[in-house]
């Protein structure tokens, strides 16, 4: 082990008990550390770290009321106050890693369990600083963006079979993946797995498959990982991305839901859950998740004022569906919305307009049409379509629709398609309101799902074809072609099994939905009539 220059180390000790701070300070002095700062709460830690680079931060998990050591660690990394060379040790009275499941998200370099002794501190610091010291050439190469020599050094370290080779392997795998060296990453993880089935290596291998576009293989492995160790959170994150890459946002939501059940305190996963639920037209789940985001956001660097609006949006969406959420949640969302609207002096004009549109929707859903109408006008006067942004205009469209202004909404949609003709991401946001997607990405998804569904239909696998079209119609509820494909698959199914009442009912409902939205000049109109006749014939024979 390299000799650690303790007299040069800059150490920060943070705990809300002065007793503990002075005990640790005395231990550090025994080790020869002279440069020690103290902090008693999260604000002091952040303030000190913003001014000074520490080599070691010894931080207690409990810091009194407010943020805990885990929050502080996240924020230090988020704000860039803690470089890769610094060591962060989380101290607690609890056994090791078990204290916080969300520690997977931003893991400290090590944990120390109270009571601490000088010898324990000496052992741990010695090991951690020796590792950082060994990795110094890698950090230097990465500082220069010289990935090739960083990799070379890590390869040497990995092969050395000494105390630092596991850490080097992990870092090397990540670097390979980040630099697109997928084959090399795969080799590395496979070599590790030959010796022992370690979760991090299994995940790395699945990630490499995922990044190479082999979503089926990646999905299979990832499912196996969470099945074997259902507390291993990072695997859920990759699995959710993998489902999305396959275009299955409902499966992605299910996966994120499972990870949130394991770790309800992770604000980023709650946010992801809310956004997937919104996308999947599941406002009840979105509301519950956003409620937690708002709550967790008070202490987290990942919270923001946007969360309050998103919370209210999910309330509006749920009310518009005619659902009655628990009154406590409604009041919570409503009062958070009102207080956001009252303290709006700092907001940009678009943000103020968003709030007004959301308020308009909530009021309309509560039957207060007059107030809602006034709020709409107020919002429209606040910012013009040209000066606005896509988030605000999506709120605008929803506000128009909730008041039944269909014509105005479709005029606005046309204008927005012109304004955002070069902005694919913005167009994707509009797709759910349109008969046919406007964005290339969503056109491709519909085309792919259609191809898959039609192939299944051709093989007589009607139920699987239906599931396929169903998934797509969740994303594009107004897509007439998809709806008709569903009818056609149901007709196929009914021809094989005429007595299927459920299929008969679905068939009738789908046709009614199409009938409500289709015009005679639509290219699909003839097909619609044909299918309607076929369905009627089946219905009569049944």
């Amino acid at each position, binding site marked *: 082990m390299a000799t650690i220059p303790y007299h040069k180390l800059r150490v920060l000790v943070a705990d809300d008990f002065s007793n503990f701070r002075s*005990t640790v300070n005395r231990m550090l002095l025994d080790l020869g550390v002279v440069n020690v700062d103290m902090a008693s709460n999260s604000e002091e830690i952040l303030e000190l770290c913003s001014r000074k680079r520490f080599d070691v931060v010894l931080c207690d998990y409990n810091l009194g009321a407010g943020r805990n050591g885990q929050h502080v660690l996240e924020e230090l990394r988020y704000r860039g106050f803690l470089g890769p060379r610094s060591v962060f040790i989380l101290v607690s009275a609890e056994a090791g890693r078990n204290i916080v499941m969300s520690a997977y998200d931003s893991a400290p370099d090590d944990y120390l*369990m109270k009571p601490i002794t000088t010898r324990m501190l000496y052992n741990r610091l010695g090991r951690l600083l020796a590792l950082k010291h060994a990795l110094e050439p890698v950090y230097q190469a990465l500082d220069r963006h010289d990935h090739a020599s960083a990799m070379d050094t890590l390869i040497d370290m990995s092969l050395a079979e000494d105390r630092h080779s596991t850490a080097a392997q992990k870092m090397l795998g990540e670097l390979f993946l980040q630099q697109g060296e997928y084959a090399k990453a795969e080799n590395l993880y496979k070599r590790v797995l030959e010796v022992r089935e370690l979760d991090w290596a299994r995940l790395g291998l699945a990630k490499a498959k995922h990044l190479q576009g082999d979503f089926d293989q990646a999905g299979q492995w990832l499912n196996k990982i969470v099945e074997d160790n259902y507390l291993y959170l990072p695997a859920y994150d990759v699995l959710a991305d993998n489902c999305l890459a396959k275009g299955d946002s409902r499966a992605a939501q299910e996966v994120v839901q499972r990870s949130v059940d394991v770790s309800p305190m992770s604000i980023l996963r709650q946010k992801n859950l809310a956004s997937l639920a919104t996308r999947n037209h599941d406002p009840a789940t979105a509301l519950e998740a956003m409620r937690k985001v708002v709550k967790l956001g008070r202490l987290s660097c990942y919270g923001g004022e946007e969360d309050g609006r998103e919370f209210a949006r999910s309330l509006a969406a749920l009310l518009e569906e005619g659902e009655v959420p628990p009154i406590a949640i409604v009041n919570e969302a409503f009062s958070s919305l009102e207080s956001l609207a009252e303290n709006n002096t700092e907001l940009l004009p678009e943000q103020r307009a968003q709030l007004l549109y959301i308020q308009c929707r909530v009021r309309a859903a509560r039957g207060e049409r007059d107030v809602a109408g006034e709020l709409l006008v107020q919002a429209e006067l606040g910012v013009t379509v040209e000066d606005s942004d896509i988030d605000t205009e999506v709120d605008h469209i929803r506000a128009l629709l909730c008041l039944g202004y269909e014509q105005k909404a479709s005029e606005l949609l046309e204008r927005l398609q012109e304004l955002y003709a070069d902005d694919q991401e913005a167009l994707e946001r509009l797709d759910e309101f349109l008969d046919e997607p406007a964005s290339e990405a969503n056109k491709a998804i519909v085309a792919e799902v259609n191809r898959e569904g039609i192939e299944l239909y051709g093989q007589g696998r009607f139920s699987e074809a239906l599931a396929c079209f169903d998934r797509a119609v969740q994303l594009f509820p107004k897509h007439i072609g998809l709806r008709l494909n569903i009818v056609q698959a149901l007709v196929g199914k009914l021809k094989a099994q005429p007595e299927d009442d459920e299929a008969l009912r679905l068939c009738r409902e789908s046709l009614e939905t199409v009938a409500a939205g289709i015009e005679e000049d639509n290219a699909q109109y003839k097909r619609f009539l044909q299918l309607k006749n076929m369905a009627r014939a089946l219905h009569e024979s049944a």
Partner: protein
Amino acid sequence: MNKADNTSKNGIDFSTVLASSVHDMKNSIGMLLSSVETILDEMKPETPEQERHFHTLHYEASRINGELIQLLTLYRMENGFLPLHIDEHFPLDVIEDQVARNQLLIDTSNIDVTVDCSPDLAWYFDTDLVGGVIHNVLVNGIRYTRQRIHIAVREEQKHLVVSIADDGDGFPDDMLVDPANRVFEASLSEGATHLGLFFASEIARLHKQGEDRGRIALMNGGALGGGEFRLILP
């Protein structure tokens, strides 16, 4: 252990109530323990009598602390909330940490602890859980040994064998057979529940390689002539 339905007629899950009070107790004991250590550090005992009292205070507090941690870990294990982080670690690190953690206890008990473990020997295990097992065995050994405790680690037929031996009177004969399951038979009147052995065995079993699982063993007449505990991991 089967997951039983512990919900009482009042709708309270008693094991959860217990677990949360254990959690509270453990935090209190943790504070108590660190106060005791500060006192021991700042006020050296003046008479042998005082030294003996301090020692008892410290020893009993560490024992309660260890038992409470065991209980919580078992609770989490049974309810599927015990995260397992198996990775490559160095057994010597874990042992040094546990000896350091109990240094005060070792010093005040006048016991000589020796360690025989290669610094280069690496193995695959969860360092927190295995650390907890070694801590418990060590604290227990300090109570029953006369003068010495010897910790030896070696690789034997593709297994890691951690043995902790003392020069005490050894284990009662009836404990040597199937020690892990003694927890169910031991009555309170015997004065010991052997929960620690059950805990150690469960932690060992969480470590698998293929079909092979970790286990524990007890024997008498070990390296120092007294009792010897062994943790064997694949």
